[in-house]
């Protein structure tokens, strides 16, 4: 959405190594526009938190430069960067009340007392904790502490807010509620947010764009819908959402589509050519479970059958694990419309559109 605007945060050829032997971050190039909500998503150890710490100033890039508002920031100490941050365990100061926690960044900036009071109250009201100023962090619930941490990161009007898995310690319901709250606050005040998480649904819910990290490299940087519907490689396809895979070899390339012969002689599949180049290349096909239809033979050549291995009743839909073309982890979601009569062991007729199958790297 902000692709056209000038980049506000710019990572340029960033490498990071702690021991001189292993690169934790490899050649990172990332542009973040002003007002954008960008999430760094990836499994633990993928370098996303390191990247965030470099931006905050607690780690130094081994190579490359980070620009904030077109100025290089490597030489600026963390306390002069004017970047707010919400830490994983909030890092609220336990010996200060909520109000004192919030005044702290203002006091060190030598802002006048009445101004501090006003700003603190405004920040507390923003996170709906207006009456909690005199409490100590230990007297608050996890969700309230989370909000205080958020308010503290915003109260001094930083140029940028970083969040390092801020919802990791909350239970599921609260986490979802906080996701919306953070998103709404972002929408309201329009601040640039860089968010780190390993929870893909969190990333999909909140972000304008998501950078998927794997092993120190950004695999794909895109909006949530494109990331989910059009993954560019098998890591992203597997990491974001549920994904069925079939392995094969490319037999024919035809413009943007290709034909793949499945391993084990199960037949040919027509697919979109995404991350393969030539005939004879090995490939992994990716199909989302909800794009597979059952007992519907109207689509083009991708018609297969699978044996039901397991049925799991989930209320709104029934999750069927099938054995399809040698893959017994093939998942299909059947909407619970009351017409599904099959049992475990039955053969199902399956089909999918060739636009929904993506031929990716193996």
């Amino acid at each position, binding site marked *: 959405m902000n692709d056209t605007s000038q980049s506000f945060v710019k990572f340029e050829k960033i490498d990071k190594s702690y021991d001189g032997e292993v690169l934790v971050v490899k050649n990172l190039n990332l542009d973040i526009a002003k007002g954008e909500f960008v999430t760094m998503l990836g499994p633990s150890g993928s370098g996303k938190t390191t990247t965030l710490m470099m931006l905050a100033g607690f780690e130094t890039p081994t190579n490359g430069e980070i620009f904030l508002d077109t100025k290089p920031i490597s030489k600026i100490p963390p306390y002069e*960067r004017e970047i707010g941050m919400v830490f994983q*365990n909030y*890092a609220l100061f336990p010996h200060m009340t909520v109000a004192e926690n919030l005044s*702290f960044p203002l006091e060190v900036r030598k802002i006048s007392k009445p101004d501090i009071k006003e700003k603190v109250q405004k920040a507390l009201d923003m996170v709906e904790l207006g009456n909690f100023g005199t409490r100590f962090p230990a007297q608050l619930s996890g969700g309230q502490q989370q909000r205080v941490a958020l308010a503290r990161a915003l109260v001094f009007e930083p140029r940028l807010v970083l969040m390092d898995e801020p919802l990791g310690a909350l239970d599921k319901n609260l986490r979802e509620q906080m996701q919306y709250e953070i998103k709404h606050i972002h929408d309201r005040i329009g601040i640039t947010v860089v968010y780190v998480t390993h929870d893909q649904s969190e990333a999909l819910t909140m972000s304008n764009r998501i950078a998927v990290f794997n092993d120190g490299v950004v695999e794909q940087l895109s909006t949530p819908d494109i990331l989910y519907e059009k993954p560019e490689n098998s890591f992203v396809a597997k990491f974001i959402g549920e994904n069925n895979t079939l392995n094969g070899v490319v037999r024919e390339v035809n413009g943007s589509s290709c034909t793949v012969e499945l391993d084990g002689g199960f037949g040919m599949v027509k697919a979109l050519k995404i991350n393969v180049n030539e005939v004879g290349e090995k490939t992994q096909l990716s199909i989302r479970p909800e794009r597979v239809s059952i007992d519907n033979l109207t689509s083009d050549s991708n018609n297969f059958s699978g044996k039901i291995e397991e049925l799991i009743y989930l209320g709104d839909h029934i999750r069927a694990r099938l054995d399809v073309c040698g893959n017994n982890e093939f998942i299909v979601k059947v909407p619970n419309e009351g017409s599904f009569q099959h049992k475990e062991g039955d053969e199902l007729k399956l089909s999918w559109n060739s636009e929904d199958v993506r031929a990716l790297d193996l």
Partner: protein
Amino acid sequence: MEVPISTAELLTTDGIPLKQSLRKAERRNKLRAFLLVFPLLLFIFVTFVMPIGDMLLRSVDDSQINSVFPNTFDEYKNWDKGADELPPEEVYKSLFFELANGDKRQIGKALTRMNYAKSGWKSLIKKTTREIKKIVKKGEEPVSYKDTFIKINKFWGDPTYWYSFNQMVNDRSSIYYWNALDRTFNEDGDVVLQDEKRRMYIKTWLRTFKVSVYVTIFCLILGFPVAHLLANLPLRYSNLLMIFVLLPFWTSLLVRTTAWIVMLQQNGVINGILVWLGVISDDGRIQMVYNEVGTLIAMTQILLPFMILPLYSVMRVIPKSHMRAAQNLGAKPVTAFLRVYLPQTIPGISAGGLLVFVLAIGYFITPELVGGKDGKLIGSWIAYHLKTTLNWGLCAALGAILLGIMLIFYWLYNKIVGIDNIKLG
């Protein structure tokens, strides 16, 4: 549906009152818990409560002398000091028989006590007893006991001796406490300062305080960075460092103290190095041991672990993200340390401080060995009276005052910091 709200006792399903049922159910557990701690309770009672109680009683106990001279003291109470210069005849008479028939050992003990009240009593009574024994042996009965006494020794006509009886006639006496504070009773029974040359306790008390406060401060200054390092180094290095911190615990206190003598004495290691480096001349060797400086150095080293360990245990649980958060919020590292880190270490500082101070104030071996004449602390006096003069009453009083001071500090600490904040590990 209407829910009946009753204020009556809650009942279990079987109709027994709930509280009674709960008591019954919990009785076994309570009994078991009590039996588990009982040996410890007994142990503490026998080895801690009883000795301390006995000591506290001893510090005010004056009953021994009352059991030796019961009649004399009874008669003495009838003496009208305003009317007569000397006590009445009955006093002399009772004393005559009590000296003549008394148990020699008991009288000996009583004499020691009498000498605390007024020096000179011991030799006076000893001489007099010899003479009285002679008189009794001859079978004579003196016409006037008073005159007989005065004939034996003219001091029996000196009322100041008799006045000093005044402080011994009760079973309880505060004399030891006053002695422990360089005070005594005068002839009228008022509290006055001791003779100038006998005043040493106040001086020692003050020195004990001074040394304890300094040792606490030095331990804090030296221990804080070490504890911080311990808490923040990678485990591999911090374990090694921890061994160095704990090493003193595994070495005999005596060895460590004497090692300090070797290090600090005038011909010791440190002076040797300084002379070798040319920092000081051979004649200008620094006196670092057998004085207060030596006491301070050695005690600081010996008590340092007691400061480091509580500090470490507190610092270990302060998340590293706090300093980062403070800096991220715009605080310079120094501000972040002072406003975010330091306040969170207060439980450790106060626990370590209290521990070191309490240990230092009652310290004995180290000051005794390296303290010399002007580095001795109050513990040395307690040991001296316990072993050399056998003045256990004074020992007990000194100990009780020490205990009282500690309790006052404990109370102050609880008022200011709160005892719940203490963290020892």
